[in-house]
């Protein structure tokens, strides 16, 4: 967990009050989750219930750390799959059919834009198509002058190249679940991705800071998640009203990525009944709304989005809408290595001016080897 560690105990107080089950919360800094996991798996001792960031989910599954809950689920109404937003159902999180985790909080990516800078550059509304995105970036870069850009591509962001592929109408996993970047849509996406570098619309330095870039106007448009909203408000409260969010510009569609955290039960847990009651409580819409109010994390249950606390915020409306059209990144154990290879290839082309065809060929063979 990040800084939510302090808020969580308050959330479960009511659970303890109504069920008598005590919950001891242990917060781990995000960067050390893997260390804790490996030692826990090696020794067999772990917590009863765990929050698993979706980027780590595949590792947890591969470690066999999570208990299969499929048979128990029907007893708990709030854990039923159709309670959750369509992009985060139990089936999507557990493609092999063994339900080992249920959704907890959701996260997605949308377009952040500086409305004041867009207006200054003569752009009336945020781009809604790929063509508009590129054209607007050109205008913004020209208007900004030296040291300013039109858009921002984080060089080591796992999601963006694959968002483009989905938006181009393609998939990155074949029917057997293996990851592949060899489709025509992937090529279209790569070309689009690289065009920003070729036309000098994005910064090339690896340590470009997203928040500072947006606040200073160096990167007036970028793709990011709700956490950036808080960062911008903290860093530049004076910018209020001068920026907003919009759904992602569409290629053939405007599919985004869905991320977040899910909840699971430790495979050796001795308190299955209590664990499931806790999970059920946490996925109750009212709990989800309470958590949103406390920690500003989006719920994963559909009905929570109807609560006034969420409908009142126009930015939340954008996130909610985008969540309706979002995919999960592959839940393959080798995804970390595969994604690293993908980004390396893309950066070689963008920054070292390597030959795109050659890099993609190398990438495809690397990816194939990794999944042998």
């Amino acid at each position: 967990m990040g800084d939510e560690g302090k808020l969580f105990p308050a959330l479960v107080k009511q659970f303890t009050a109504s069920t008598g089950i005590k919950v001891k919360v242990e917060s781990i800094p995000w960067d050390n989750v893997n260390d804790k996991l490996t030692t826990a798996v090696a020794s067999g001792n772990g917590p009863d219930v765990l929050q698993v960031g979706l980027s780590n989910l595949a590792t947890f599954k591969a470690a066999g750390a999570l208990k299969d809950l499929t048979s128990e689920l029907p007893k708990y109404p709030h854990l039923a799959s159709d309670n959750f937003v369509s992009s985060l159902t139990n089936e999507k999180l557990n493609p092999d059919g063994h339900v080992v985790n249920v959704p907890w909080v959701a996260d997605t990516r949308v377009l952040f834009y500086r409305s004041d800078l867009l207006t200054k550059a003569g752009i009336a509304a945020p781009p809604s198509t790929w063509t508009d995105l590129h054209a607007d970036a050109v205008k913004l870069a020209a208007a900004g002058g030296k040291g300013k850009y039109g858009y921002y591509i984080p060089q080591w962001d796992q999601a963006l190249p694959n968002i483009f592929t989905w938006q181009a109408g393609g998939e990155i996993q074949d029917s057997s679940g293996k990851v592949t970047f060899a489709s025509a849509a992937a090529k279209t996406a790569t070309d689009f991705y690289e065009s920003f570098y070729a036309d000098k619309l994005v910064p090339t330095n690896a340590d470009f800071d997203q928040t500072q870039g947006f606040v200073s106007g160096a990167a007036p448009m970028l793709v990011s998640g709700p956490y950036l909203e808080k960062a911008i408000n903290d860093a530049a409260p004076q910018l209020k009203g001068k920026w907003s969010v919009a759904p992602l510009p569409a290629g053939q569609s405007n599919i985004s990525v869905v991320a977040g955290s899910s909840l699971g039960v430790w495979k050796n847990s001795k308190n299955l009944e209590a664990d499931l009651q806790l999970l059920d409580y946490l996925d109750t819409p009212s709990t989800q709304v309470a958590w949103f109010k406390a920690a500003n994390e989006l719920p994963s249950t559909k009905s929570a989005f109807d609560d006034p606390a969420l409908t009142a915020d126009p930015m939340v409306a954008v996130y909610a809408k985008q969540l309706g059209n979002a995919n999960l990144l592959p839940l393959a154990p080798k995804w970390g290595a595969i994604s690293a290879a993908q980004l390396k290839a893309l950066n070689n082309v963008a920054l070292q001016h390597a030959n795109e065809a050659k890099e993609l060929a190398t990438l495809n063979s690397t990816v194939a080897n990794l999944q042998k």
Partner: protein
Amino acid sequence: MVGGARTLTERFNVVTTSIRAKATTVSQLARPLRRSPRRRRPTTRAPYWFVAPSVAMLLVFGILPVLVAAIVSLTNMDIGDLASPTHAHFIGLQNYRQLFGDSAFWQALRNTVLFVAVGVPVIMVISLAIALGLSRSESRLYRALRALYFLPAITAIVAISLIWGYLYNSQFGVLNYLLSTVGVSPVEWLGNSNLGRASVAAVGIWRATGLDIIIFLAAIMGVPQEYSEAAAIDGAGRWRTTFSVTIPLIRYALFFVAVTTVINWLQFFDEAFVLNQGRPNPATTSLSLYIYQEGFKFNQFGFASAGSVALFALIAAVTALQLRLRKSDD
């Protein structure tokens, strides 16, 4: 006369005899371990008692894991096998083949060798020079200076990463801002280049001098004043005294800092990791970082162990070489 005249008059009787005695003893002891046939072996078992608790701890928490790593390096163990290690398969030397066949490994090795070859001498020269300077006086100013020089050693790594990251940031950093005020265009300090390497090394050097200055200072302070006073009586100037008397008498400390700095820099990790957070940079990836990125991060324990064993062998070889050179030096 020389400052500290009181010691001279008080200790004068002891000086001449003990200097001669010390001259042989210190250089003899500054040699690393070698059985001296002149010594009659004491029949006491005391040394074993003194050494046993520490050695036992190190065997359990230090050597045992290396042996485990050596075994695991011959398997394809990953996180799936961690709970039941017998599921992992023996794959012989395949991890090592993969390791030595990866160009990124050789690049990491090159980077590491560069770090050591440049970093270690620079650290030693700077630390020694400053320690000699600080040894001039024990006044309050000098004691405050000691604390200032020690600060890099105690600043937390998270603070180091934020501060130096802020200094080096190519778009928003302080250094580039200063350059811009004199019309120089921004430099990518942490890029995939020699400059990137130098920037990361600079942070490591800055950090290492903190402790080494204090170690050298303790050693210099341990050189009895009588030596430099005797040299002054003989007519030697300050520089000559330093080079001919002081430095030889702290050889044991120079040796220590050289060996440990080489060992530490062959395992260079912290600065390379925090300054390029999540942004793999081929120019600044050290061997340790490579092993972490390709092995531990993806929970590929077999491969990570192979990398660790290879690194261990390299360090052991280099250290053995240093010890051998030291012996023949006498």
